[in-house]
């Protein structure tokens, strides 16, 4: 069973107050959450996933000063998890350099990628704020429904409905051709 935002946040704050037991309980609860997070996103074997999980646990522990007690715990956690994943991508990519090729690839794809992003931003901009945010979180940033709900303090069904309605509105807009 998965722990929810309130439970995790309570443990985190208790840990910040110096309660080592609760802090340990928090880190243990984070293990399956982080494993799930990285399995869904990062390629690589179980060892690589476990390395990422451990790095994130170390960061959660050593950098807990940066948690703001008034904000969502899961938002903070996944921001760290995501940073660790991107940092890991960068590092592993750097281990197999092909001279010059990388720059070419990046420059080639850049225009397509950025104009696609502008299109997406334009389209999402036409939606109500919440729908756009939820589509962004679940479909672009790759959070699961549960993670998006926790990060935003909404119910899961609320997130699902927002995404569904938003996508439907986008669909009719695109099929209709004009705006």
């Amino acid at each position, binding site marked *: 069973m998965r722990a929810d935002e309130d439970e995790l946040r309570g443990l985190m704050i208790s840990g910040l107050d110096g309660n*080592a037991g609760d802090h340990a309980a928090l880190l243990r609860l984070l293990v399956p959450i982080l494993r799930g997070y990285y399995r869904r996103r990062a390629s690589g074997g179980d060892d690589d996933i476990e390395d990422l999980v451990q790095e994130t646990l170390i*960061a959660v522990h050593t950098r807990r000063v*940066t948690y*703001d007690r008034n904000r969502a715990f899961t938002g903070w956690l996944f921001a760290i998890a995501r940073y660790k994943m991107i940092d890991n991508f960068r590092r592993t990519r750097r281990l197999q350099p092909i001279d010059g090729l990388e720059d070419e690839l990046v420059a080639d794809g850049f225009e397509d990628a950025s104009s696609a992003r502008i299109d997406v931003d334009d389209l999402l901009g036409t939606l109500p704020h919440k729908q756009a945010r939820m589509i962004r979180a679940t479909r672009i940033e790759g959070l699961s429904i549960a993670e998006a709900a926790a990060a935003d303090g909404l119910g899961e069904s609320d997130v699902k409905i927002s995404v569904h309605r938003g996508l439907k509105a986008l669909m009719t807009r695109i099929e209709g051709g004009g705006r």
Partner: protein
Amino acid sequence: MNTDDLIVQLTRDVPPVRRHMLGWRIAAGILLGLLVSGACVVLALGIRPDIAIAMYGFPFWMKWGYTASLAMAALIMTVQLARPDSGRLRWLWLMAIPVLLLAGLGIAELVRTPPGEWLAMWLGQSWKVCPWLVLALAAPIFVGLLWSFRRLAPTRLRAAGAAAGLAAGAFAATVYCIHCPEVSAIFVLTWYSLGILLAAAAGALLGPRLLRW
């Protein structure tokens, strides 16, 4: 290592974290840097000889007000960007207030001065060195901030580097005020701001490299 063992090891020592620890850590880094920069100004550049008189004048406080308020705004941004979930920079517009106020003072000053003296007023005695001295004095403060960041978790490294550089530059300019005898608002607006911006640019350049964790 086994993940369970790692957790046991990590949680052997769980010191309590006070509420505003993050801000204090950043303040401590800046303070360490300020001590070094302040010593450089006092020992190498020298305090302006007329400081006791200057402190009764408006230009001195105008300069300090400008650099100190920029420093505060940059500090707020640095604190925000030190968190992984930094979100939108809501207080960025605060930076515009001191700049606009000083620009207003500059215009008033130009109106009162005959156009023939504008250039001399703008360049002052020290326009060639002022930005570079501000940049140099920012370096120790930036190093202090790098120390602060060792326990912090910025995820937008370039922005965090720029904010740290901006804060370092603005605090450096604040210290530099005790040396610099210039009095004109347009001088400060141009050359002080240039020095501060150089520091911010250096921070943006170095951030992705030095702030990784």
